[in-house]
C-alpha cells in the first residue's frame, strides 16, 4: 500500500508546522502550498487523497481554489476540508457551496483534526 497524501494549503508557517508535527507519527505523507493558486497547481500535479484548505489565502481564496478544483475532473471528487476563521455567519454554507466535503473552524484542536482526517481517509 502506498501512503495517503495530504495537501495542506495555508499561508501561516506556524500552522503548517503544527500539522507537520501532528502527522509525524502517522503514515500520511504531507505536502504543502502557501497560497490559493499554488494549492490548485499542487493538487492537480500531486493528486492528493485529501486537501486541507484554509479560507483566507494570498492570491486566490481557499473558497475560490476549492471551486476551481471541483471544476477539474482530476480533483472533482477529492475530499476537501475547508478551514475558516471568518466572523460572519453562513461560513459553513459558503464552504459547502464552494464544494467542501467538510468544514472546520479555527482554532481547531489537532486531536479533532486528526480524527476528522482519519475518518475521511483512513490510514493504511
Amino acid at each position, binding site marked *: 500500500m502506498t501512503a495517503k497524501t495530504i495537501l495542506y494549503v495555508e499561508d*501561516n508557517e*506556524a*500552522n503548517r*508546522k*503544527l500539522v507537520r*508535527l*501532528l502527522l*509525524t*507519527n502517522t503514515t500520511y505523507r504531507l505536502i504543502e502550498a502557501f497560497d490559493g493558486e499554488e494549492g490548485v497547481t499542487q493538487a492537480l500535479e500531486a493528486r492528493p487523497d485529501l486537501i486541507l484548505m484554509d*479560507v*483566507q489565502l494570498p492570491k486566490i481564496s481557499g473558497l475560490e481554489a476549492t471551486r476551481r478544483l471541483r471544476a477539474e475532473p482530476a480533483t472533482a471528487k477529492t475530499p476537501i476540508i475547508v478551514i475558516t*476563521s*471568518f*466572523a*460572519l*455567519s453562513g461560513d459553513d454554507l459558503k464552504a459547502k457551496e464552494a464544494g467542501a466535503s467538510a468544514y472546520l473552524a*479555527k*482554532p*481547531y*484542536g*489537532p*486531536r479533532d483534526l486528526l480524527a476528522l482526517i482519519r475518518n475521511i481517509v483512513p490510514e493504511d
Partner: protein
Amino acid sequence: MAVIRNAPGEFSPEVVKLLQTFGTQSAIAIQNARLFREIEEKSRQLEEASHHKSQFLASMSHELRTPLNAILGFNEMMLDGLCGEVPEGFNDPLQEMQTSGKHLLRLINNVLDLAKIEAGRMELALADYAVNAMVEGVRSTLRPLAEAKGLEFSVDVPTDLPLAHGDAGRLTQCLMNLAGNSLKFTKEGHVAISVEPKGENLVFRVTDTGIGIAPEKIDSLFTEFKQTDATIASEYGGTGLGLAITRQFIEMHGGRIWVESAPGKGSAFIFTIPVQAKPA
C-alpha cells in the same frame, strides 16, 4: 423666479399672491430635493461604513484566530505527549496555558459577536426547534461542571411543548451563559432551568442559590464589562460580555430579559421570547 407676460400692465394683487405662493412652494420643493439628496448620500456613506466594519471584523477574526490556532494547537500536542514525554512539573503550566488560551478565544468570540451586533451584521438563523432538546443539550454540556462542584442541577420543561421557531444555536448560547453563570456563582445548593409556556411566549427561568446580586448593581448587569465587582472576574473568571450578548440575542428574538435577586440568597434570570420568533 422671473415671471414674464406679453401684455403690458401691472399684475393684479391676486396674481401676485398666487405667484408668491408658487415661488415659496418651489423654494420648499428645491430645498426638499436637496435634503433628499443629502440623506441619500448619508445613507450611502453609512452603508459603506457598515460594509467596511464587516470587512474589518472578518479580517480581525482571521488575524486573531490564526496565531491562536498555533498556540492552542502546539500546547495540546505537548500535553498529549506528541512532542515527547512531558517533563516533571510541566503539566500544570501547560494546562494553565491551555485554559488561558481558551479564555482568550472566548473573549475574541464574544467581542466579535458584540461588534457584529453593533454593526447590524448579526442575523438570526431562524428555524423550528424542540425546546426540550435544546435545554437538554445545555444540561448535558454543563452537568460535569455541576457535578464537580457538588451542585444539584435540574431541568423542568413540559414534555408536550409544540415546536418553537427561533435561532436555537443563539438561544443555546444564552442559556449556556446564564446557567454557566449560575454554576459559577453558586457554592452550594442548586441551579435550575425551567421553561413555561405563557400565551404566545415562552418563559425561561434560570435560578440558583448563589451569591446573589446587590440591588444597585442590577441595572448595569447587562452592560459590557460590568461584572458587579472587578475582583469577580479574577475570582470567578468569565469575559464580562456574556450577559450583554445574551440580552442582545433575546431582544433580537423580540423578547426581554430581567433579573430578580437577593444578595446571599440567589438569583433568578428570567427571559421571555415569542414561541414563533419573526424575522427582523
